[in-house]
């Protein structure tokens, strides 16, 4: 509780002249390995934060050319689900609020894309913008009660949204095309130089989905690091203190759900890119709960964890059927949720982080040579 808690060595560490602010330094540390040290805000750190996602996207995008068509398409789904999980993570990780209804937001995005692109022939970037806007509005609507109520009641409202979603789709069938959606008349045709046969068109779709995901990643990151993200994190940390500093906690919570839902809707639209068909039931409550399980598995509050969670959602059923096992994929989700909640709160990423830190250590000031 006293100021002496800070280890004395750290103070010295902070007094280093900025001239030593080299991008990436190889320093001797007390650790077993020689680890790379990146100083927060330095060129090296920026290279990691920008370069790694780009590199990861290139790998995931390129991988489709080494996979059979079916597995390639599963990879596309993984990328789309990753974006949905990023949206969910804005609410869970950043906003610190439980949501059990993000499947409905993703569904809203998928239906928006189906109607705009599939029925009205909008170009896909416009359809994505439309999905984002619909997601924003849907999130605001669902989040509105958080102006008045607090705590986990919002989770109940999101759950209710997930339950209601298929009925809403049916109720407005004249617009949504009903439970099985409208007839979709849209195809991603690759440019000629790619030399893809019709059966391999899905590879082009995959590249588009990857690029959209990368853009979504940077937009989410940008918001998280920006003024709104700061306010969202401040409210998650200490709502009373945030209020005392002029932050309108209720409004910030509405923005959080809205932003979160918007990203999930874009992810939902990407799912439609992969399979040009929608069904209301695939976005029902079970999907929402699987998303939550996937987020817990990957690690809430980490954008990489979302990819691992998405991987689980697709790869587990795939592996089970590949190996001819008689296990319900639902069971895997349930077991994962229970096990990770009990023993690994921070998910797979939480388990891997210490190992990663052995190699790249992010510090906030340049270290001295030991």
């Amino acid at each position, binding site marked *: *509780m*006293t*100021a*002496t*808690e*800070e280890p004395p060595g750290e103070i010295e560490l*902070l*007094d280093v002249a900025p001239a030593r602010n080299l991008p990436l330094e190889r320093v001797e540390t007390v650790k077993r390995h020689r680890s790379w040290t990146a100083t*927060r*805000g330095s060129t090296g750190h920026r290279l990691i934060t920008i370069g790694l996602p780009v590199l990861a996207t290139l790998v995931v995008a390129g991988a489709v050319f080494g996979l059979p068509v079916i597995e390639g398409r599963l990879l596309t789904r993984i990328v789309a689900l990753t974006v949905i999980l990023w949206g969910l993570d804005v609410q869970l990780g950043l906003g610190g609020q439980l949501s059990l209804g993000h499947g409905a937001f993703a569904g809203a995005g998928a239906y928006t894309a189906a109607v705009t692109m599939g029925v009205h022939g909008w170009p896909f970037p416009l359809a994505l913008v439309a999905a984002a806007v619909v997601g924003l509005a849907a999130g605001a609507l669902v989040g509105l009660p958080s102006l008045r109520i607090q705590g986990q009641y919002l989770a109940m409202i999101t759950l209710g949204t997930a339950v209601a979603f298929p009925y809403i789709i049916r109720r407005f069938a004249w617009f949504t095309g009903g439970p099985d959606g409208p007839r979709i008349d849209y195809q991603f045709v690759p440019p000629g130089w790619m030399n893809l046969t019709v059966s391999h068109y899905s590879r082009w779709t995959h590249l588009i989905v990857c690029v959209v995901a990368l853009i979504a990643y940077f937009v989410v990151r940008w918001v998280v690091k920006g*003024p709104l993200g*700061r*306010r969202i*994190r*401040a409210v*998650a*940390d*200490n709502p*009373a*203190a*945030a*209020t*005392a*500093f*002029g*932050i*309108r*906690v209720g409004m910030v919570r509405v923005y959080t759900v809205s932003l979160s839902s918007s990203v999930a809707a874009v992810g939902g639209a990407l799912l439609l890119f992969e399979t040009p068909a929608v069904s209301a039931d695939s976005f029902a409550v079970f999907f929402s709960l699987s998303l939550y399980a996937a987020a817990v598995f990957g690690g809430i509050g980490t954008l990489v964890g979302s990819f691992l969670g998405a991987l689980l959602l697709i790869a587990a059923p795939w592996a089970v059927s590949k190996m001819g096992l008689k296990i319900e994929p639902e069971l895997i989700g349930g077991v994962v949720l229970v096990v990770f909640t009990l023993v690994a709160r921070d998910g797979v990423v939480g388990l891997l982080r210490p190992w990663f830190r052995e190699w790249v250590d992010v510090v*906030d*000031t340049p270290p001295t040579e030991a």
Partner: protein
Amino acid sequence: MSGLVVDDVRVAYGRTEVLFGVSLEVPDGSLVCVMGRNGVGKTTLLNTIAGLLKPQSGSVSFDGSSLAGVGAHQRARLGLGYVPQGHAVFPQLTTRENLQVVMERQGRRARAASLRQQDLDEVLDLFPALTTLMNRPAGLLSGGQAKQLAIARALVTGPRLLVLDEPTEGIQPSIIHEIEDTIAKLHAAIGMTILLVEQYVEFALRLADRYAVLDAGRVVSTGLTSEADPSAFAELMAV
């Protein structure tokens, strides 16, 4: 009257009454200290002033206008800077972000970005220790560092009334001196109006112009610190 006036405020948590008609004046430009033993309702009083709690009766007014119906976030914008008890910094946010997030709310479009940078620099001059910790998550700061950040965070909003809840609690003596100097500087140099809650009597008496002692939800003694007898407090504050 300009400044803060608390008039016959009663506050309860559910059915548990905590403040039984507390009145307090913090005139413009003064430094008033509220003392009292643990659990007498000091924090409750400050939370009521900040708008985080609603009084059952009585009123709080600031610069002549009643704050009834004015939300906590609006009070902050009226110029109330609150340093809550304990480490009420935002732990996930870095030191810099802790300051940014409250400046963004206060400054909005009214002030140019360059001017706000100037505010930030002025405040950091008061807390040089923070300048080397700007990119560290506030959750990793030590107790003393977090306390300094909490005060700095209130100051960057450019408050007209600074409310501090036990700034010396759990802090080593050398940092207490720093905090004391800072508060004295703010009061003397720019005439900032300050309401201080403290248990450390000598500290409070050195700084404040006026004092009020709270006991079991009532003000039991008030006066000028220059006329106060420190030994008399021993009895009032004894547990």
